[in-house]
């Protein structure tokens, strides 16, 4: 067990998977000589050479499409999109090709590729560079979408994504890259499609993923000091979505709050809330509440950006409101 950053966990995993399987190769903008815009691929060009680490022109549709072709040959390309915002330029290749080639080609050709890309916000990158649009991909049959929140999960899930025979959108987060955590020394391969109860509790279920999973954990710790027992569910996989784990948790606690770093209307939380009412309607003591970003293009000015994003405080407020609606005296 060692304590490393989320960034280091990703880098170590890419490296060990490249050593394990000759067919794993990296493509993306600025990943080689520049070692990655967020330094995930630091040292990898030097270690593996251009044959395995390919810098590409600034053409996301182009290199995602080329990676699909490489995957159709049987290689296992891991593509880095500088941020998920740039996936919009490649969206036809992702949605119409990566996700559909297996089916439209009659199951003859799978597309074993990974698209690694950070979502974010909170970095003052402005409206076009701060969006969290993982929903687009989570909506699409044929894709898998993973969203790890800790260094250990980042390693185990990236390993699983690379070894999976289907195309995986692997969602990282700018706000998580420097976070630290324990990572086991042995190679753990995550099971794709499993949420985790990362903290057990009895009063309320608090659901998040990616950066929000980290925030919800902090919220739960703080509320514990006030005698409120929060059960935290980290979705980990947005597609497939582990409805069972969510529903079982809500059956135990009787109420739920969802924290999401995307926009409220039609967001990931809407799907979670629908799943809860379908699976645990009779167990609910209060309406399911969602905490999300303000529905505005992300502002550039720091105070405005902060105001637009969900925070530990806004989540805490909604938890108090929900518990008060339940009418349960807690703490």
């Amino acid at each position, binding site marked *: 067990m060692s304590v490393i950053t989320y960034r280091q966990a990703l880098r170590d995993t890419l490296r060990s998977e490249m050593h394990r399987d000759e067919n794993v190769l990296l493509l993306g903008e600025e990943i080689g000589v520049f070692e990655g815009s967020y330094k995930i691929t630091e040292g990898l060009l030097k270690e593996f050479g251009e044959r395995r680490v390919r810098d590409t022109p600034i053409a996301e549709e182009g290199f995602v499409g080329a990676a699909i072709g490489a995957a159709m040959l049987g290689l296992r390309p891991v593509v880095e999109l500088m941020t998920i915002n740039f996936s919009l330029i490649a969206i036809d290749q992702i949605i119409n*090709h990566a996700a559909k080639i*297996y089916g439209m*080609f009659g199951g003859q050709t799978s597309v074993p590729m990974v698209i690694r890309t950070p979502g974010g916000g909170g970095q003052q990158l402005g409206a076009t560079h701060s969006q969290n649009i993982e929903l687009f991909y989570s909506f699409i049959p044929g894709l*898998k979408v993973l969203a790890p929140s800790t260094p250990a999960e980042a390693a185990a899930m990236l390993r699983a994504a690379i070894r999976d025979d289907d195309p995986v959108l692997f969602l990282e987060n700018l706000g998580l890259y420097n976070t630290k955590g324990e990572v086991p020394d042995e190679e753990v391969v995550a099971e794709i499609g499993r949420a985790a109860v990362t903290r057990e509790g009895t009063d309320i279920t608090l659901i998040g993923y990616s950066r929000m999973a980290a925030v919800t954990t902090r919220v739960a710790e703080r509320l514990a000091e006030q005698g409120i027992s929060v059960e935290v569910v980290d979705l980990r996989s947005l597609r497939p979505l582990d409805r069972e784990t969510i529903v079982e948790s809500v059956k135990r606690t009787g109420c739920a709050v969802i924290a999401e770093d995307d926009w409220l209307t039609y967001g990931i939380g809407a799907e979670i809330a629908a799943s809860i009412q379908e699976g645990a309607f009779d167990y609910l003591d209060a309406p399911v509440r969602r905490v999300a970003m303000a529905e505005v293009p992300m502002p550039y000015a720091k105070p405005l950006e902060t105001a637009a994003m969900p925070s530990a405080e806004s989540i805490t407020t909604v938890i108090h409101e929900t518990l008060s609606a339940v009418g349960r005296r807690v703490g």
Partner: protein
Amino acid sequence: MSDSTAHEEPELIQLLTPEGEFVQHPDYPLDITPEEVRGLYRDLVLVRRVDAEAVALQRQGELGLWASLLGQEAAQIGSGRALRPNDMAFPSYRDHGVAWCRGVDHKQLLGMFRGVTNGGWDPAEHGFHLYAIVIGSQTLHATGYAMGVQRDGAVGEDGTAVITYFGDGATSQGDTNEAFNFAAVNNAPIVFFCQNNQWAISEPLERQSRAPIYRRAAGFGFPGVRVDGNDVLACLAVTRKALRNAREGQGPTLVEAFTYRMGAHTTSDDPSRYRPSAETEEWKLKDPISRVWSYLAANDLADDAFFAAVDAEAEELGERVRRDCRALPDPAPLDIFNEVYAEPHTHLERQRAEFADYLASFEGAEGVVR
């Protein structure tokens, strides 16, 4: 139209004139036996017959759609016969002639257009991928595949060259232009084979490209060549050379096969609404099959018995195509879940189970559920 830059016809590589006269080209010498030419003639006649049957089957309601290759047989057979078994083709949806050359059974093509399968052939076995439907998308897949071939060192005399087929319409797409650029900077072993059939549905070439298509390659830094797309021998010679260059590490070539779509874009449109009939009449004189017939007949390279045998084979094939098409079995409803993911997926398993229960709830459902 004749004053449009895109329609100038300089440097059109032609080995067989529309009248059937064979003329060697200094850059593309072709050493070909009479037997091989007869083989090409047979290919041309038979794929035209499969195509005609498919159009008729669509009119009879047996196929949902068909994209006719009528007029483009030489471009497809010439280039398709230039491929070696190790080579890999990434086609578009009209490339039935290339499919023929790669040994794909007509039942598998018909199954797709009938909608009973998503294409049943193994691309690795045939060196021929499944049809791309989104315009130009396959050029990038082919480029990535070729970069992979290059990375694996599968080049050289016995190596793999990649060819991708697309139309003039696809040259307007970003994907295709990005593929040109990626292939160029990586010196990928690929041939871009553009069948310029003059029309992107109802959009004529002069509204798609100001420069002749083959000249675009120069801007990306690789050779481009315009070949008479209705000349099967020229298409064979030019593609063969381009494939050899790719294998030998000389990078990509853009081949513009200058041809004409004699039929509709697909069975769902009527070209008489947007295309002058005089133009079609003019192209009839450049028919890809009649010039091979003239060449063989005028030079005593084939006798009446040969032509009669090919006609009889076409008749027999046509009958088989009709019979095979109607005999294709419908898929079972639960098949919708079969080919979404290569690996097990919890959402799908749940949906499949729910749908199976639903189907089983009908009286006498045994015949429905599979």
